[in-house]
C-alpha cells in the first residue's frame, strides 16, 4: 500500500543490479564466441552416420534398410540403395547406401531416426555452427559429409557409444561363433561324410 510495493520492487532490482556484479548465479549469460559452454552428453542437433575403421565408405554401418527414411517425421532423409553388397559392422553381407542425403533445413532434430535404426548406424551429432549462404544445396549433407568415425562418436557421446560398441562386439562374437559353428558343422559334416564314405568303402569291399 501507498508505494510500499513500489519501493520493495525498487530494492529488488537494486539487489539484482549489485548481484549481477558479484554473483555468477545471477549473471548467467555465456558470451558465446569467446566463451563456450560444454553441452551435456545427451544434447543433440543433427544426425550423422557412424563408420568403423578408417575407410568411411567401407566402414559405414548403414545397410540402407530405409527404416529411418520411412519413419522420419518431416521426411528429410533420402536414401538410394546399392545394387551390390558389402560386409556391415557385424560382418554380414549387406546393401549400402549409394546416396544418403539429409536436408538439415528440414530436419527437426527429433532423433527418431536414431531410435528406429536397428544397426546403430545413425546417431545424433552436436555440431551447430552450420550456417551457410546457400539455402538449398548448402544445407544438404550427403553421405560423405554425414559419415563420421566411431571415435568421433565416442568423443561426443561416450557412454552411449561404449554401450553400442559392447552390443556390436557381442553381436560380432555371436556372428563369429555362429560362423565358426557353421564352419565346424560343415567340417563335421564333411568329416562324417568322409567317415561314412570310408565306412562304406570297406563294407562295399566286403560285399
Amino acid at each position: 500500500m501507498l508505494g510500499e510495493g513500489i519501493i520493495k520492487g525498487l530494492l529488488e532490482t537494486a539487489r539484482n543490479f549489485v548481484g549481477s556484479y558479484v554473483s555468477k548465479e545471477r549473471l548467467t549469460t555465456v558470451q558465446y564466441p569467446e566463451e563456450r559452454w560444454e553441452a551435456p552428453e545427451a544434447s543433440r542437433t543433427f544426425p550423422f552416420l557412424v563408420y568403423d575403421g578408417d575407410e568411411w565408405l567401407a566402414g559405414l554401418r548403414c545397410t540402407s534398410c530405409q527404416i529411418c527414411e520411412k519413419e522420419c517425421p518431416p521426411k528429410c532423409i533420402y536414401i538410394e540403395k546399392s545394387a551390390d553388397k558389402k560386409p556391415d559392422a557385424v560382418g554380414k553381407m549387406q546393401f549400402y547406401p549409394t546416396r544418403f542425403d539429409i536436408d538439415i533445413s528440414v530436419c527437426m532434430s527429433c532423433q527418431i531416426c536414431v531410435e528406429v535404426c536397428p544397426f546403430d548406424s545413425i546417431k545424433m551429432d552436436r555440431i551447430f555452427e552450420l550456417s551457410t549462404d546457400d539455402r538449398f544445396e548448402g544445407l544438404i549433407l550427403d553421405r560423405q559429409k554425414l559419415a563420421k568415425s566411431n571415435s568421433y562418436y565416442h568423443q561426443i557421446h561416450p557412454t552411449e557409444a561404449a554401450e553400442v560398441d559392447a552390443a556390436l562386439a557381442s553381436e560380432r562374437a555371436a556372428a563369429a561363433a555362429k560362423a565358426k559353428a557353421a564352419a565346424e558343422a560343415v567340417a563335421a559334416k564333411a568329416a562324417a561324410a568322409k567317415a561314412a564314405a570310408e565306412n562304406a568303402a570297406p563294407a562295399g569291399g566286403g560285399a
Partner: protein
Amino acid sequence: MSSWTLQQSTNEHLAGWNRPQVIKPEGDGEVLEVSMGPHHPSTHGVFRMDVKLDGEKVIGLKPVFGYLHRNHEQLGEKLSYLAIMPYTDRLDYFCSLSNNWGYAMAVEKLAGLEVPERADHLRVILAELTRFQNHASWIGFLAQEMGASGTPLMYAFREREKILDLFEELTGSRMMCNYMRFGGCRVDPTAEWLSETRKVVQGLHKFVDEFENLLTGNEILMSRTQGVGVLSHDLAVNASVSGPMARASGVNYDIRKVDHYGIYDRFNFRVPLGEHGDIYDRYMVRVLEIRESLSILEQALKSVPGGPILDPKAKSRGIRPKAGEAYGRIEAPKGELGFYLISDGAGSPYRYRIRPPSFINLTVLEDMCLGHNVADAILILGSVDIVLGEVDR
C-alpha cells in the same frame, strides 16, 4: 464440394446463448477500427484482434486466427503414431513435455498400455518443471505487456534456463524434448540428474519469493489488473475455459485432481482459487500454483523408485492400435490439453485431434475486453496465456 449458405440464426435458437454484451458508442457514434496484429509487439506472435474503439474504449473485438496454421491435425493423419510425437513438441512450444504426456496418454488409452512407476514419477517431475517455467515466463510476459521493460521476464528466463538445462541433460533438447513414449519414457535419468534437479528445485523457492517481492505488492500492477477482464464463474464453465484461467474465476476444476491421471493422487497439493476472476486473480493463482508445483516436485523427487521406464509390452515403432477411439487429457500449464484419436487399425491414426487449451480460452476474449481500454485489451489477451503454435496449430 458442397455449396453452402449461411442460415440466419433465429433469436429463439439463441435464447440461452451467453453472448457478449453489446456496447453502443457514445456521442456522435464514430468508431475507430484498429487492426491490432498480426505484427504487433504484444500479440504473442501472429495473432490479430480487430478492435472497434470508441475513444480508447473497446466496444467490439474479434479475434482473427490462422496466421500460423499448418494443418497439424492432417499432418498427424499421414504420419505414424511415433512420428507424431515430435510434432506435439511444436504445439505449445513452451511446454513440450506436457504435450508429449497428453499425446502419449491418449495413445496409451487407445492401445491399453500401462506405464511403469518410475516413468510415471518422471512424467510428473517433468510436467511440473514445465508448469513452473511456463507460469514464470507468463508472469514475465504479463509484466512486459504492462510495460515493465522486461525485468521480470529476464528473471523468469534466468530460472527457466536452469530448468531447460535439466531438460537438455535428460532429453537432449531444451525445448523440443520428444521425451515420452507410449507406455513410458525414452531415456532413464541418472542419479546425478535427479540430485541436480533436487538442487535446482530448492533454488526455485527463493526465486518465487524474489519474484513476488518485485511484483505482487506493486501498486501499479494491482491497479492495472484488479477489476480488469473479469470473467464470471458461470461463463467460464459454459465457455469451456480451463486451467489457471478458470480457477481464477473460482472454478474448482483441476484435471490432476479430477481425473487422477498419472500418480498425482499420491502427492499432497492444493488447488488455489480466485474469487474475482480478474487479471490479478489469474496472476496470483499462477503464483500460488507454482508454489504447489514446487511442493509436488519435492515429494516426487523424494520417492522416485527404481525399475524399468517403459512398459515391456510397448513398442514405439509400428504401433497399430485396434480400431476404436480414445480421448486423453491432462492438465497442461495452459489448461485442459486433450488428444482425441480414432484408430482404424492402421499404422497412423484415422483422426488425430488436439483440444488446444489456449485456443478455447480465447472464446471469452471479447466478453472480457468489452468496455475496457486498449491497454487493458492487450493485458487481458496476455492474461489468457496463449501460444500461437497451439492456437493455430
